[in-house]
């Protein structure tokens, strides 16, 4: 994306609008920094006593007729959900936005097993039609223009082309209304899990999660074990903070608590509710006390929005479910340090992410710690050799001068081997140009000054 200026402009203008709105909302707080500290302390308490809070959460849920399932791995979570769907003999499934479902590649698994799954969040619906992962954890389709979306809808839904975002939204609304009414199962994620009362809280703007949790006969909610908050009253802090940091809103349109399936004195709602608690390496991150606060994350996306790297390379470049700074911190824990350590190097360590985080996760220090851990776990022989040679050359002026002369003399010959296996700078020149060495060093320029 870095070279695609149109795409970069689109993302930066969207994030520019976000920043202006967010700043206005932050200013409405009596004290945003105090609120951040309180949020960090509340999440710290929740995560550092996670066992007690989870037990309370589950006991309260089960007491009101909810079935709770525990999944150690992504595969187990997929099997549990597929099992429920098979048991219900479900034909069609409606889903509201859930990053946890992206994490375990739920849609792929359901489609392979022959079930139809429809994403109901507008942005997710669009990227699902494009067979793409979400571009951003909060704004899944922010990389697309209305023209591209209109073309997509015309092709996939047979609608007339339009350049009005309102009409495009109404096309999706009409298509999805039918799905809500005919689906057997609704699948949701969750933003918070309240230990005190045994409820999950779902935040959304569109009303699609409300409908997903109201109409189908069976409801399934998938959430990570780290979503815990101790008390119901904590939401009075976290809901405005999530809305402000996430989208520059005072409060998201619908913040809904669910405490059970349809109760005997109620007129609607699912007859059965299954809550699937997912570990999938979260307990490994919990065991790393230094980076444990990465589990405080409320997935607001604020660190992505301010990150100079994200703003220039875009969401899909990461190749991960969670992109941006938080993704670079947690992906090595979730999917292997050696395979994903490069993400921690794609950072200028400017600290904008840490500053933006509403729960004060020490993001840029964690990127540094990932680099340290990766190097300690598997030191690179060539890197160490390279630095040793550099130290020898840089410490001896005569050798340095010789290296300079050799470098200038030999660089023009590099064209012959550029990008091939013989090229010593291959890692760079495969995809980029190596700038020529300066014809004169600073020392030479200084000597020759008038």
């Amino acid at each position: 994306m870095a070279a695609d200026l149109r795409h970069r402009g689109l993302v930066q203008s969207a994030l520019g609008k976000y920043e202006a709105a967010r700043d206005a909302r932050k200013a409405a707080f009596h004290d945003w920094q105090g609120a951040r500290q309180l949020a960090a302390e509340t999440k710290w308490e929740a995560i550092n006593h996670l066992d007690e809070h989870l037990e309370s959460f589950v006991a309260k849920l089960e007491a009101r007729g909810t079935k709770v399932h525990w999944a150690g791995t992504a595969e187990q979570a997929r099997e549990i959900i597929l099992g429920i769907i098979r048991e219900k003999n479900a034909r069609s499934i409606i889903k509201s936005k859930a990053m946890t479902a992206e994490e375990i590649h739920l849609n792929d698994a359901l489609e392979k097993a022959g079930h139809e799954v429809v994403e109901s969040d507008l942005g997710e619906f669009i990227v699902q039609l494009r067979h793409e992962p979400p571009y951003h954890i909060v704004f899944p389709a922010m990389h697309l223009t209305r023209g591209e979306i209109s073309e997509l809808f015309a092709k996939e839904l047979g609608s007339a082309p339009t350049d009005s975002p309102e009409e495009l939204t109404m096309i999706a609304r009409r298509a999805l209304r039918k799905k809500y009414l005919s689906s057997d199962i609704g699948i949701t994620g969750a933003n918070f899990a309240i230990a005190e009362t045994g409820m999950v809280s779902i935040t959304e703007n569109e009303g699609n999660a409300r409908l997903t949790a109201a109409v189908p006969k069976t409801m399934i909610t998938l959430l990570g074990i780290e979503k815990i908050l101790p008390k119901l009253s904590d939401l009075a802090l976290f809901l405005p903070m999530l809305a402000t940091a996430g989208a520059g809103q005072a409060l998201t349109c619908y913040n809904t608590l669910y405490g059970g399936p349809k109760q005997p004195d109620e007129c609607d709602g699912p007859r059965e509710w299954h809550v699937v608690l997912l570990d999938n390496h979260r307990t490994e991150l919990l065991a790393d006390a230094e980076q444990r606060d990465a589990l405080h994350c409320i997935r607001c996306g604020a660190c992505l929005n301010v990150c100079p790297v994200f703003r220039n390379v875009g969401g899909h470049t990461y190749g991960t479910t969670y992109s941006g700074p938080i993704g670079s911190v947690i992906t090595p824990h979730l999917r292997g340090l050696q395979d994903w350590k490069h993400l921690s190097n794609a950072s200028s360590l400017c600290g904008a992410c840490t500053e933006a985080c509403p729960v004060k996760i020490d993001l840029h220090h964690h990127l540094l710690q990932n680099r340290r851990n990766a190097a300690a776990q598997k030191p690179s022989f060539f890197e160490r050799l390279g630095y040793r040679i550099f130290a020898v050359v840089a410490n001896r002026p005569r050798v340095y001068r010789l290296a300079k002369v050799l470098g200038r003399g030999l660089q023009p010959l590099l064209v012959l081997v550029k990008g091939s296996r013989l090229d010593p700078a291959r890692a760079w020149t495969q995809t980029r140009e190596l700038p020529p060495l300066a014809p004169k060093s600073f020392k030479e320029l200084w000597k020759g000054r008038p």
Partner: protein
Amino acid sequence: MRERDKIMGRIRAALRSPAPRPGAHGAVAHTLPAGTASAGSIQQWLPPGGETFAEQVEHFRARSTELKTDFQMLASAEEALAKLAKIADAEKWRRVATHQGELPTAIVSRLGLPVLNTTGGYDVHELEACDAGITACEALVAQTGSVIVTSRDSGGRALSVLPPHHVVLARREQLVRDLSAGFDRVRTKYAANYPSMISVVTGPSRTGDIERILVLGAHGPKKLTILCW
């Protein structure tokens, strides 16, 4: 149970080592010391909601304008009925949905329109075809311009979100300062027997998923009207 025990075992083992305290780079602890930001009330950090009733009404009105909620502060139930009849006329409502409850029963039956009552069960296709869903609420939140509805006293889960226009009927003593006070109302009223759904509704349904441009009525109601007296 086996997987549960394994995960709980991993959590307990992991928590044996203490974590750095929040906002204190490096210093570790098993519990937080007293006198941190958790001390005192959270009002000292959050956006205000107004102290007096008049201030709270002003806050609610200002938030409603931003959110494109139609908020009407009225003198009596009679005025609310007149207002509702006017909207019904202007939008050419043919059928409305509501539920059993003090406010809706008193007002909606006098509207002279066919009514679908969700209390006790209903057909979802019929509800979808209604022009408006008229509900009571638990509280109005001045701080954020929100309405709190529940599955028990607002006619179920779908009534407030499936029809294209959601009308809330509220009494002035239901207006509270902020979200904390709103949750307190729900807690006091239901104690341990909570409704299965509690929703904080802030404005009509919206999306910004296409070029971050605001569109109302993504999946839920395109309009939200609050009649308070």
